[in-house]
């Protein structure tokens, strides 16, 4: 009484099958196109505006001016939209009920999750790197065109900053994916991501004199995008780029680990 079982290929479904399926899924929902489009437009617009504003520094001097950081600043927008993208990749499945179809098709949940996270990670890194480079070149074109100090990829620290910015934002998206796995609801996941990344630092700032060096957005702007040591003494030195990136990787891994344990153990 077997049907397709007789025609089934040998072995069993593997990560590669789930990866192909997840790529198709990612490309066939509107939230992907919307977040990608928004990130490109808003990110490059912010970079353009900030670079343009730098052509006429208020102090009249370029002391401590960091052309690399200036040209990457628009990617803070990508930090937010990347978070939305990461969360929606998984919560969109919960809100539509697709997650049950997904688990029924590939019920080995650890394998499923590895494929899903892998696809999300590769997509996020590739896209964020592209955007990071485009933003850098756009910013430098505006700066040099306007006679301000500018950088190129050979400038000490510049290539490192551009590459790390892309990776960092991809890690932020993965952290948000982890939040999505934990709360399984689009609004709640996006709210917790925005809350932790953008609101918590403000709240902390209002309470006492906290060490804000460990906050993702601060790491991003002060440790990752920056290529010059921060100015006058008395100010706490930011984390080094590699420590900052490592810390963000730990945040993302922790969020994904909690989400993965819950995903495997909970009823779908």
């Amino acid at each position, binding site marked *: 009484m077997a049907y*397709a079982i007789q025609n089934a290929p040998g*072995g069993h479904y593997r990560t590669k*099958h789930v990866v*192909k399926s997840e790529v198709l899924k990612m490309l066939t929902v509107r939230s992907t196109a919307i977040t990608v489009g928004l990130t490109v437009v808003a990110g490059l617009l912010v970079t353009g505006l900030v670079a343009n504003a730098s052509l006429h520094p208020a102090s009249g001097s370029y002391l401590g001016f960091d052309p690399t950081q200036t040209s990457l600043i628009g990617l803070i927008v990508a930090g937010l939209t990347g978070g939305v993208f990461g969360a929606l990749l998984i919560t969109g499945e919960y809100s*539509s009920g697709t997650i049950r*179809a997904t688990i*029924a*098709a*590939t019920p080995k949940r650890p394998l499923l999750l590895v494929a899903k996270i892998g696809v999300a990670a590769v997509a996020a890194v590739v896209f964020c790197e592209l955007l990071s480079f485009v933003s850098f070149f756009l910013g430098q074109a505006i700066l040099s065109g306007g006679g301000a100090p500018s950088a190129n990829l050979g400038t000490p620290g510049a290539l490192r900053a551009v590459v790390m910015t892309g990776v960092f934002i991809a890690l932020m998206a993965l952290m948000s994916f982890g939040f999505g796995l934990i709360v399984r609801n689009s609004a709640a996941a996006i709210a917790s991501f925005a809350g932790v990344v953008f609101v918590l630092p403000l709240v902390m700032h209002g309470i006492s004199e906290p060490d804000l060096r460990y906050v993702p957005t601060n790491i991003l702007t002060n440790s990752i995008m920056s290529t010059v040591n921060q100015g006058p003494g008395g100010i706490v030195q930011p984390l080094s780029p590699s420590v900052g990136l490592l810390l963000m990787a730990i945040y993302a891994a922790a969020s994904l680990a909690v989400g993965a344990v819950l995903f495997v153990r909970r009823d779908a």
Partner: protein
Amino acid sequence: MITAHSLTKRYGAATAVDNLTFEVPPGVVTGFLGPNGSGKSTTMRMIMGLDYPDSGSALIGGKPYPELAWPLREVGGLLEAKAFHPARTARNHLRWLALTNDIPLRRVDEVLDQVGLTSVANRRAGKFSLGMGQRLGIAATILGDPGVLLFDEPVNGLDPEGIRWVRHFLRGLAAEGRTVFVSSHLISEMALTADRLVVIGRGRLIAETSVVDFISRSGGAAVRLVTPDVAEFSSALTAIGARVSYGDAGSLTVEGLAAPQIGDVAARDGLRVHELTPITASLEDAFMELTRDEVEYRPSTLAGAAVAGGKE
């Protein structure tokens, strides 16, 4: 073949599925009947490896669902009305499913054709009517040409034509030798679609039987007799062991005797018969009878009426 053994699922203090043991054999449609909230969907989710049982097991061809090599080629499940992303087209929904189990993509167009969705294959599934959504869900179940199929309330919200189509479709799958397990709270629908029944109430097994047995087992076979000679008939029938109750104007309900025997009494005693109708209990009556104590939520007035009706 699906086998559930001592399947149990608790949510806090409430027991949704209680020590449920049953079998779903191939080649017939097995109906899964129970009132709303009786644990049908939970049971089906456990069979498909979506929910974890607290104890007991559910096996497909002897294996737990998560251990199937190619799940979609072995089991097709329709567990909720719209388990697809609204922004994705019908074709893309089936394509990602096909990719997971290395199913040739030509199957996508085949099953779209089979359920009659070819003309809307490239439309976003979110724009589909309930009936079209249900057809897309059914297309997904047969994508891998599986030998075991589960459908949770497949005719919910469908128009009469859709209901007929689903009924024929399910019977066709069983006729091909597949294992077909269909849940419903619609008894009349099960009477037309199913050959066997697994009946549950409050998560417990009430009956596992054929539809025919289920109806006859609940008893209640009676004959309606309309006659001007009510008094004479009543004493003559009671004398030979029948139970007789009076209905409206000149009608009697006779239990314990079949229509031919009543006709014989009429001929023997020269009594007039205007109508003689065997009344078989409907599947609905049988169901009400069996689940009377198992319905979790019931308005009190209805409950009273059901009890009074049962005693009649």
